[in-house]
């Protein structure tokens, strides 16, 4: 399943910006993107099914990914749920 929410926090715990990005609102864009990808895959690799399957796996693989950077200059947290 592809992620439906991305939590982004920039800055410190008290003064930072916290965003919940509803990725599920982008799901309707997946079919047009898949068509474009299929055309590109047909031109480049001639293996449309494998390209679409890999693209889906890449998108769904992002679920559960956490990236946290905490430094004196910047604090950044991104979580895909």
């Amino acid at each position, binding site marked *: 399943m592809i992620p439906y929410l991305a939590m982004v926090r920039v800055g410190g715990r008290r003064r930072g910006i916290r965003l919940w990005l509803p990725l599920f609102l982008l799901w309707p864009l997946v079919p047009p993107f898949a068509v474009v990808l299929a055309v590109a895959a047909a031109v480049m690799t001639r293996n449309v099914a494998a390209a679409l399957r890999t693209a889906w796996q*890449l998108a*769904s693989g992002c679920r*559960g990914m*956490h*990236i946290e950077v905490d430094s004196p200059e910047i604090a950044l947290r991104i979580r895909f749920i």
Partner: protein
Amino acid sequence: MNDNRLHVLQMLAAGEVSPEEADRLIAALDKQPAAPAARPGEVTGGNPRYLRVFVEEQETDGGPPTKVNIRVPFQLLRAGVRLASLIPNGAKDQINEALRKNGVPIDVTQLKPEDLDELVVHLADLTIDVEEKDTKVRIFAE
């Protein structure tokens, strides 16, 4: 130190829980019965789902350290390896050349999903710890 206790301490360090909450969580973990010892050859952690990378670097001016904590699903790594198999051969040669120039002599034509699966199985029992003067790196599967 087991992973659950380490996770609680990391939450405490990140300010996600108070010291009292961390104390209660660790006390609750202590009450849990210990897991049975693994038999030789048995994968203790089961099939890991994530690759965790911790990097901590001390500032030279004595300031707070820079910390990086990344959790990557193995499913994403598998998809990346499959993506490599879709790259046209001409592009693979260029990628190999660029990697070699940058000190990463990896042949992307040799990347196969089966190899990654085998690597994941072995990563279940492996933890990589690198400690230098100002930098600590820890890589493990969970």
